[in-house]
């Protein structure tokens, strides 16, 4: 099965540590992997791996500033995932309401 952008978002956010990293970036604004690692029980290297996974899902982008790399949350794809859930839920609400009327008619 092909992996589409929404799949990557679901995969990236299925991991608790990556959600924590994402939240820190959203909360604290752009920062470096070292600064993120200071506030988390893991090494800088581990943080970088998670940032890369988030980056592949389009949730984080990296900008070089001199010797440092600043990571910034780009949460739009996350909104796409939530939008999928809301849209899918709304479709089922409508279908099931029609089904309810349909089967009531059949027995009534």
């Amino acid at each position, binding site marked *: *099965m092909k*992996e*589409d*952008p*929404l*799949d990557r978002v*679901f*995969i990236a*956010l*299925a*991991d*608790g540590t990556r*959600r924590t990293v*994402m*939240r820190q970036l*959203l909360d604290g604004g752009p920062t470096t992997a070292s600064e993120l690692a200071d506030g988390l029980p893991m090494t800088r290297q581990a943080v970088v791996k998670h940032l890369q996974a988030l980056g592949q899902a389009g949730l984080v982008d990296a900008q070089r500033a001199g010797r440092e790399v600043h990571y910034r949350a780009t*949460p739009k794809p*996350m*909104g*796409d*995932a*939530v939008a*999928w*859930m809301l849209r*899918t*839920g709304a479709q*089922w*609400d409508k*279908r*099931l*309401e*029609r*089904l*309810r009327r*349909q*089967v*009531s008619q*059949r*027995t*009534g």
Partner: protein
Amino acid sequence: MTEHARDAEGSQDADTAVRREIELDAAPADVWEALTRPELLEQWFEAEVELDPRPGGTGRFIGADGEHRVARVDEVEEGRRLALTWWPDDEGDEPASKVEFVLTPTHGGTRLVVTESPLTARACVATTGAGWAWRLELLVLTLFLLVRA
């Protein structure tokens, strides 16, 4: 119970992306027909429907809005449970997802539970065991962003 389909929060098996539960005033056999006979599916899906409701059977849902999905029937327990996988026929961004219908007889009719879960998310959730909490967090994050914007 309201007359509308409701989001069944707090369920034990809520490890999927979207879940709806509805009480129907009809016998399970009638609901099963509405779920498996294409000419009945067409009415409540408001779509052109082809479906071979046997394990491995294929299907097609073409909505009035042009949305076109291809389906494969995964599991069939006559009168009780129907599971299928469907995916868009074009190269859109929508993920393939698994749709499951579970029917339970009730005093006055049938309780129908529908779950639709994106396949990759389902796979991840199965390994992390974090499904429901993850969905809540995702929503909290999004609301947080909306507030900040």
